[in-house]
Structures are given as C-alpha cells and as structure tokens.
C-alpha cells in the first residue's frame, strides 16, 4: 500500500496527456469497468466497433463512473456503499487520486463532471439516515472537496448533469440502507426524481405516489427535454409494474411497460438506461432476464433483444451498444442485434459514454 501511495504522488505531479486529451488514451468513445477471470478488476476504453483501446488495472471492483470531458481522465466508483472513488489517468494507465467520502457518508456508485470538467459531483448518502447529498469536488485542482448540497431524497443513486450544463437530475432511490445494502424502509419509501442546481437549490421534484416501491435509480436524457428514469421494483414480488419513466419538465411522467408476460422478463430489475444514438429510442436492460427493452419517446414498446447477462447500455449511431457479463459487446440497430466483439472481461453494470 505505501508503495502505491508513493506512485500516486509521483503521478499526480506529472498530469500526463493533458494536451492531447483522450487521443492520448487511444481515443476511446466509451469506458466500462469489469472483473477478470482471475478475480482482478480493470477499466477498459472502448471504441464503437467494440475494440478495446486501453486497459487499466483497478485495485477494487468498479461499478460506474464518468469520463472527464477534456482530459483522458475518468473517475470510477465502487459499488454501494462506496468508500472510495478512483481518478484514473487513462493515458498513463494508472490511478492518480483516490477520493474518500466525508466521514459519516458513503458514495452511491455514480457521479458526473460539469462546468467543462472543472467540477465533479458525486452521489452520496449519510450513513446515519440515508439522506442524499451531492458532493462537489474541484476537478481542476487535484480533486479537493469543495462542499455538498442536499439531493432532496434518500439513497440517491445516479446524478447527472442535464444537456443544459447546469441542471442536475438526481435519482433519489428512496431506500434507506444506513451503512449496508439491506433495505430498511420498503413499506414507507418515497423515491423521487429531483432537478436541482448547485446554486439555486431544488427546481422540481417528481414522485410516483401509486408506485412508491419503485426505486428510481438510473437516468438518461433524450431529445426534446425528456429525462428517462429507470426503476427497480422492491414491492410485492408477484407484481410487475412499469420500470421506465419518461419525464418532460413540468409535466406528469409517462410510465412505460412491455405488453403481457414480456414485462415479467425484466424480473423487476433494470440495471441501466440509455437513449439510442439518434435520440429516438430509450432502452433499459435487465441482467437477471438477459434482455433489452426498447421504447419510443411517446412511451410505446418497440421490442426486446435477448442476450444472457446483459449489462451496460450506451448510444451508438442508429441504436445502442451493449455490454454483458459474458464479455460481449453488441450493436443493436433498429432492433436488430449484431455481435461486435468478445473480451475476457465480465463487464460490470455500466457503459460510460465519453
């Protein structure tokens, strides 16, 4: 451990690749964290063709992360309850900073850069009461902690800066876990989708009074000001409610489900949500069901694509790119799936678009 700290300190001073940007890391368009057969972990830079352009070993399991908009730098979060986030120099192939949440808080697996990459926000919760916080970090100056603002809900999972560059959408999962993963408040949970800014506080909050046990967890932004939010149902296991919502600011959300038994194929779980590259579709994936469900922006179901252990989802021109726990990458265009590549990685939940 001491040797790695020394290594980190040396790297922090060098700030590699800054002038070249992501080209210095092989010009990846996506990042994904994974586990390898031997039990080690890595972060991989990927092209839209499925080709891997770099691999950086990680000291622990990465769940999701964010890519810096300019520098070849990514922040990778552990899974909840996260005690670390790693800032990785993807050109040098090394961890540059290790971020720790403030005492009494944990990271919840997601974060986002804003303000041209000057700031990093991290979704956090206080361990004592699961109250959500957005941690604010100075990504321009060595990732110093600048402060935090409330997320206006319990157990925030994903927090993303909207296309306007200012508003932050937060998926407040509503689940109280304290410092573990066990859900403590299923009967009384109140998840929400909150829109806020770092300066002006809460702008709008969306709740689902009829489906309070639908934990809002992941977010994507589609054309026309649509926020897509994906949920995980933790209520009665014999029901199969909609797990995708489409929200336009100031309006009631549209909830989307596949018809008939097809909805059961999600097993009440969605792992990720993404828009298609042309912005006309929204997709959600379920790993237990090994399925991708596609929807149009009016909420209608377009179809399902099956592949075992589907994980990450990101936009590709004309459709989606997927990752899975079998190491695969596939392109889905107009509902037609095409294998792209197979890597030794067991991909984790998320595919990060750069």
């Amino acid at each position, binding site marked *: 451990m001491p040797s790695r700290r020394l290594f980190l300190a040396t790297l922090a001073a060098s700030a590699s690749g800054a002038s070249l940007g992501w080209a210095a890391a092989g010009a990846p368009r996506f990042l994904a964290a994974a586990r390898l057969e031997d039990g080690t972990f890595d972060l991989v830079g990927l092209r839209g063709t499925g080709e891997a352009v770099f691999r950086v070993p990680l000291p622990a399991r990465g769940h999701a992360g964010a890519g810096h908009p300019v520098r070849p730098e990514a922040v990778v979060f552990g899974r909840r309850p996260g005690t670390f986030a790693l800032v990785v120099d993807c050109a040098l192939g090394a961890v540059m900073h290790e971020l720790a949440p403030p005492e009494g808080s944990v990271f919840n697996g997601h974060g986002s850069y804003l303000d041209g990459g000057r700031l990093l926000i991290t979704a956090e919760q206080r361990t004592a009461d699961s109250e959500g916080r957005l941690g604010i970090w100075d990504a321009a100056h060595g990732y110093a902690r600048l402060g935090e603002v409330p997320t206006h809900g319990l157990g925030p999972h994903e927090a993303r800066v909207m296309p306007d560059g200012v508003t932050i959408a937060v998926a407040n999962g509503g689940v109280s876990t304290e410092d573990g993963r066990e859900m403590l408040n299923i009967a009384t949970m109140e998840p929400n989708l909150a829109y806020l800014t770092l300066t002006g506080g809460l702008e709008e909050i969306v709740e689902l009074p009829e489906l309070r046990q639908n934990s809002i967890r992941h977010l994507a932004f589609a054309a026309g000001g649509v926020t897509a939010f994906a949920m995980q149902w933790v209520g009665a296991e014999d029901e199969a409610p909609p797990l995708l919502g489409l929200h336009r600011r100031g309006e009631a959300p549209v909830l989307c489900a596949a018809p008939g038994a097809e909805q*059961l194929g999600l097993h009440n779980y969605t792992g990720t949500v993404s828009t298609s590259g042309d912005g006309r579709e929204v997709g959600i994936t379920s*790993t237990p069901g*090994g399925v991708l469900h596609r929807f149009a922006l009016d909420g209608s179901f377009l179809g399902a694509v*099956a*592949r075992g252990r589907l994980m990450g989802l990101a936009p590709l021109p004309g459709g989606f790119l997927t990752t899975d726990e079998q190491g*695969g990458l596939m392109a889905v265009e107009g509902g037609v799936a095409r*294998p792209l590549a197979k890597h030794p990685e*067991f991909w984790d939940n998320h595919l990060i678009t750069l």
Partner: protein
Amino acid sequence: MIRAILAAACLATPACADEAIDRAVEQVILPAVADFADRTEALAEAAEADCTPLSPVLRAAWEGAMEGWLMVQDFRFGPLEATGLREAIAYWPDTRGFRPRALNRALTTATGPQSEQDMAGAPISLRGLYAIEAMLFDPRFNTYGAGEPGCDLVRLMAADLAGNAALLEEEWEDFAPLLQGAEAGNATYFNAAEARQALFTGLVVSMQFDMLERLGLPLGTGGEPRPELAESRVSGRTLQNIIDATRGHEALALALTDDPATRAELAADFDDLRERLRAIDDPVLANVSEPAGRFMVDVAATAYTAVWTKVNRLLSEELGVTMGVVGFDGD
C-alpha cells in the same frame, strides 16, 4: 486431448454444428416443450369439462401438467427467461405468502380476473401451476362448487397456463436455431461455447434449485425446520416433484455428453439418487421436524450434492465451459 482440439477447430468454423447442443435441443428440449403444451392443453380441457376441485380427472390433469413442467424447467435461458414465462407458469417459492392473499382477494372481491386478458395482467401469484394447485388442493380454497367464482377462476387459470405453454413452444421454434446455429452474425450466442454454457448453467442451476429450495426450504436454516414451506404440500407431491425433477436433469445431462461411459455413470447416479429420495418415505417432508425424519432428508440432500458435484465436473470438462457468473448482485 483430441476432443479438446476438435472442439477448438469447431469453434473456429462458424457453420460447424455442435452435437451436444443438437442432441439437447432435438432429443430433449423440443419434445419436452411440446409435451408440456399438450399436457396443459389437456388440463384446460379438463377444467372446461369439470372445474370442481375434487374432480379426479381435473386433479390428474393438473398432476400431468406438473410432471410436464418438471421436464421443462431446466431450460432457464431463452424463452423461459427473457419473456418471463417461467414466472407466469411456475411462481414458487412464495415464502412471503403472496399467493394466498391474492387468491383471497380474487375470490372475495370483484377485483379478480374475469377474462383471459385480465389473467395476463394478473399478479404471477394468481397464475400458473401453483395457483391451480392451491385452488384444487388447498383446503382454504378448494371448497367451491360448479358455477361459483372459484370455478371460473380455475378455468381462466388453466386457459392462461395452456396459452403460456403454447407460447413457450412457439418461442422455442424461433429460439432453437439461435441456440444451434451459434455462428457469425448471431448476437444471442456469439459462439457455440456460449450456447453450451447456457445449457450447462441451466442444468446445474436447476439442480441447485432442488437442493436449496425444494429440499432446503423445509429443512430450514439454523436448525429450524420449516415443513410448511415445502413445495406442493397441499397436493402431497413434495417428494414426487423432486424425484420427477431429477428425470428432467438426467435427460438434459445425458444429452450433453456422447461419451458412453459418462452417460452410464450419470444414469446410474441419478437412479441411485432417486432411490435415496424414495427412501425418505415422507411425501410432503413433514417429518423434518423430527430428528429421524430430518436425518433421512439430510442423507438424500448429501447424496444430491454429490451428484450435482459430479455432473458439474464431468460436463464442465466435456463441454469446455464453467458455470460462469451466477449470484447476480446488481445495483
């Protein structure tokens, strides 16, 4: 070693057929799925003819459908998985008691399903084999007579089940070529190894299901037996389900190897396992609460674990795959 080289050569040739997959699909899966559709169709017809719970014909038809399912349940990939048909056909275990609550609601209020369309949107606790079993055998529900709401509900349940089994058969017609033709351009299975892995994982996970749920739930944890959680307790089929399930596992396991010695060895092991299960001689595992009864179940469970371990090892070597990632812990 020669086999390993041949397998590798096979992988490199997209059009190369994989004999293990072909045997499993053509000799085991498609016939079992078709048989299950026939049996559930017979159940729906029996319910139309006489929907009263004590009807011997109806009860026998239900039992036939359950036997059919136990030959199908191992195919836990493709249509059963991605379409959620497994849940609609066989929602068990129900350790939190959703089924009795849902049945009570459906029978005592006007909110129960009134049409096949309602049934398709009903909670899975109200659908499939185990919901019908409760209506026919559970003394809390099997007191209805002809012309009463319970009768209509059973007919709807049986029609819904038959519809799902027919859908499963239909979906398998489209899915089988994907499983068998794992080759360039196939996104469901990039190569034959992935398809073999799906079959292998389906088998070993289904055997685990017997050990952890069918035997494990009544055995309980921490020395606290839970006989009330046994599967099919009301129909008296707890032990019979496990015995029948091993026939499904055996059929799939034997299809996955063409080595005569392995086939003979596994067949003998499954036979022996069934003998040990029969020796429990306690149809609903009620005796797990007593030391002697519990001992018999423990002995069978240990024998089951040994067979599972051997199936895992032999077929893993034969197919060149491992169980892969199980125990999903998403976020």
